[in-house]
Each structure stands twice: as structure tokens, then as C-alpha cells.
């Protein structure tokens, strides 16, 4: 259903109280939409959110397309971000990305057919001393080796839920 449940609506109302006007809460509300919908903003929700935040659908769409983290397609259950920025890229980040592309048979921006993995090349994640690093959903993995990456992938295959 294109609608927040009761519990989430309570969170939304609490959010609205924290800003001068409702539309200012658009980013946190869109984060909630993604949390409730497996990490993306499905068709129809832009309308609902526009109504909720008292703004236009175009405004909502403009915001969704501006920010990297807002998606209109479902990500994999394990969304893997690889930093290839300066300095990570020059400290092994690039090779880590190549390894993952090869291992998962995915290019950055793609999601695997079984919906388990998606791969994204990202800019600096503010943890450059831990290069090379990847972030899987909320979890950062520091100074990763190919073996560690393979182990993480194996583990994901074993417990896809």
C-alpha cells in the first residue's frame, strides 16, 4: 500500500514538529519511505509524500533525483559501496571494486538477478585512514582483503534473509 502504517505516521508527525514547516522534513520522510520499502522509493510514493509534506510532486521528484542515496529502483539485499575516491582509489580501492565486479558479475549501478547484491562506486566516506574500505548497507568494513570480501559474500549467500 502506498501509505505509511500507523507507527511510521507517529514518527512522521514527530519529525514535522522539529522543523519550521512540513516540507523541511522532506529528506527524513524520504529516508523513512526507503526504510519501509526495502531501500527505495516505489512509484506512487512521490505523490503520497508530496501530499503529506504539503508540496508539489515535482519538488519531491527533484529532490529524489538530486541525492545519491534516494533510489527509484530496489537495491540488492546487500548494497555494497566501494570508495574509489582520492585517496582510497590510490590505496587499493580500485582493485577492490574490480574484484567485486568480477566476483559478483556486476557493474557498478547494477543489482544481481536474485536481488541479493547491488554494487555502487562511491566518493569519500570519511574513513580514508581505513582504505581500502567497503560499506555493506550500514556496516563499514575496513582495510578489506580479497579473502575477507569473499567470506562476506559467501556468508550472504548462506543466509540470504
Amino acid at each position, binding site marked *: 500500500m502506498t501509505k505509511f502504517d500507523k507507527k511510521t505516521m507517529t514518527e512522521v508527525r514527530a519529525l514535522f514538529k522539529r522543523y519550521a514547516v512540513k516540507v523541511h522534513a522532506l529528506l527524513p520522510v524520504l529516508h523513512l519511505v526507503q526504510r519501509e520499502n526495502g531501500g527505495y522509493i516505489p512509484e506512487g510514493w512521490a505523490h503520497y509524500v508530496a501530499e503529506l509534506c504539503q508540496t508539489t510532486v515535482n519538488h519531491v521528484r527533484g529532490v529524489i533525483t538530486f*541525492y*545519491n542515496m534516494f533510489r527509484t529502483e530496489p537495491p540488492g539485499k546487500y548494497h555494497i559501496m566501494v570508495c574509489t575516491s*582520492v*585517496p582510497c*582509489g590510490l590505496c587499493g580501492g580500485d582493485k577492490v571494486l574490480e574484484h567485486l565486479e568480477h566476483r559478483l558479475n556486476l557493474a557498478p549501478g547494477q543489482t544481481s538477478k536474485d536481488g541479493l547484491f547491488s554494487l555502487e562506486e562511491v566518493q*569519500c566516506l570519511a574513513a*580514508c*585512514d581505513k582504505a581500502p574500505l567497503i560499506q555493506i*548497507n550500514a556496516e563499514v568494513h575496513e582495510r578489506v582483503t580479497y579473502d575477507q570480501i569473499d567470506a562476506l559474500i559467501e556468508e550472504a549467500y548462506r543466509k540470504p534473509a
Partner: protein
Amino acid sequence: MAKEKLLLLKNIREANYKGDLDSYRKTGGFTALEKVLSAMKPEEVVEAVKDSGLRGRGGAGFPTGVKWGFMPKGTGKPAYLVCNADEAEPGTFKDHLLINEDPFLFLEGMIMGCYAIACHHGYIYIRGESIKSAEHLQRAIDSLYKEGLLGKNIFNSGYDLEMTLHRGAGAYICGEETALLESLEGKRGQPRVKPPFPAVSGYNACPTTVNNVETLANLPFIINEGAEAFKALGTPNNSGTHLVSISGHINQPGVYEVEMGVTIRELIDDYAEGVRDGKKLKALIPGGASSNVLTADEIDIPYDFDSLMKAGTMMGSAALMVFDEDTDIVELAYRTIRFFNHESCGQCTPCREGTNWLKHMIRDFMDDNGNGPMLERVDRVAEGMIGTTLCPFGDAAGAPIRIFVAKYAADFRNHFAQ
């Protein structure tokens, strides 16, 4: 390792420090806040910060007390303080250290900052990708409410303060303060035309100050020990210590707290223990991707705002990136411009198109398809971005490319077509 001068990382460097509210209290936390709320007028806090010479640690190095002084009074509108925790400048990771391991230090500073500018609702803008840090920070804020250090009548002073954590959603440009304010208002993060400056028209068109996390973390020391004690540290006009994020081809990457004015050579050799694998230094970027590269011969410069400015670069967010003798500067330039191209907000043609052209031209060099006229064109396009855009991003993307070409032309020549 050479000894750090510990003001901001004093707690974090204690082996068993947990960073929760109780531990923070035990180290003397909130004594500054209590003093401010019980015995100081807001103007006195502003004066103390002015006297300390504290300059913003977000990138521009603007004097914090002076900035607070710009906040107009008697406008009838609410005033806002927004803490910038976006930390997205490549190479920078010091604010996250404070947020993750000792959040109450900068939060105490922020509460005092809010009091100083008569703000009753402060916002913290944290980057969207840092999900764990945001959860951690939200818990810290919740515990402040629970302990009566936020909300109504803090320390029985009659002062009320709300605090809201706002998560971004993945856009470097939202670190620029006016883009940040747009984003806080639920809009695309596109920088505003200045003037009006945020002090006049910021969040919700009200007087607003934006301060970096580390900047605010200095306040407890300044209030407890006095402005003079702070000024006694560092070099003239560059007071205090600062957190330097060191990364790249280095033995001990990490955050180091040093007095302003320690030289780059000392930072690399004595703190971060030298270039990795016994290699020679080739280049370093002193202040994040937006700052101009320095060569291995330029490392005896004191690491502070003014000395780096004099050397034709800048301290920016104090992100020192070290590159060894095997580094291909063309690759470094390519990665830098790819970053800026990805992150341009697209409002200004020189920035949007310039970063795109440069990316493609430097890509051609990477494919060994360069030539002399092309190298001149790279320089010309980069030059065309400087001073022609709405926000400093255009300069930040263009200037470093020009300096890469000027200082390391040989690297580019290695990629000329045969």
C-alpha cells in the same frame, strides 16, 4: 610517534574512555556549560571566542567569534545554529572521530554556541551515508534530553534549547553552508547566491550561523581555560591545536592533534611515521581535494592557515594526503576531477561543463592519447572555472587541476600519444 598536543582528543586517547555521558562527566564535562549558563551573558561568550582567535575548522578558517558577531539582534525572528557534520571533503575524517568516540565534547560546545547567539533550536547536519554515526549521535542527543541538558530550563538557567539531527542523502555539495541550508529545508542541495549571507537570511530566512563539528569542540577548553590559554597555542593568528587527517601512502594513517604550525615534514615523518614501504615522497595534498598539490620539496612549511595560503595552497579541512614516488599524477588528477564532476550541483555552466570536459580530457591522457595542445586546453578549461561560478566549488575543482599540470607536466607528457 611524536607527542600530540591534546585538547580535543584528550579523552579519546585515554585507553578506557567509553565516550558515554557518564564518562564525559567524569572527565570534567559540562563544567564549561554550567559556567556559561550560570555566570556568563551571551555577549561574553562571543567575546571570549573572539579573543581566543578560534578560526573555523570546516575549510574557510573564518574567525568564529566574528561570525557570531554578524548575527543581527532584535529582528523578531528566531536565530539558528547549524552544526556542519557533512564531512565529505576527500581525505577528511576527523569530525567522524569526534562524533563516534567523544560526541559530548562538541555537543557541549554546540549548546554554548547556541546560547551565545540566542538560538533555541540547533540543527546538526550529518552526511547520509554515515548511518551508524547518525544513530550513535541520536542516542547521545537523546541522553542529553534525558539528563536535562537539552530541552527546557537547562541547569535551571531559564535557557531552553531543542536539538535536531538531520541526515543528508549523499551529496558532497551539501557541505557548502548555503547548500546545506537548502537541504535542511527539504530542497535540492544547490548553493544560494550570496549575499544575503546566512547570518542575515539562513534557515527558513532567519539569522543563522553554520559551524563545523571540530570548531564547536574547541569551546569547552576556551571557556574552562580562558581565551589566552587557547591563544598561547599555535602560531600568531592561527590559535590552538587542530585535527589533521593523514591518509594515502603513509605508514600510520589516522587523525593527529597538533598545535597549528607544526611543519608538514614533522606531520609525515614524526607523527604518521613516514611514507609507506620505505618509498620516497612524490606529492602531497595538504587540505582536501580542493587544495593545491605540494611537491616533496615543499614540506618544510608550517601547517597552519596562513603559511599554507602563502605557499599557494590552503589548509582547508586539514586533510593531508600523501603520495609516494610510484604515484602517477595524471591518475591523481583524474580521480580528483572525477570526484568534482560527480558532485557538481549543476547550476553553473563553467562548473558543470568544465568538470565534465576536464574529466574526459584527462581520461584521454590516461589512455595514452595526450598531446601538447590538449595539455594547454586542460589548463585553459580549468582556468575558465576559476572565479566564474556561484560557489567556491568551481575554484576548488579548477585550481588544483591547473597546479597538477604546472608542477607535474612531465607526468602528463608520459601519456602523450606515441
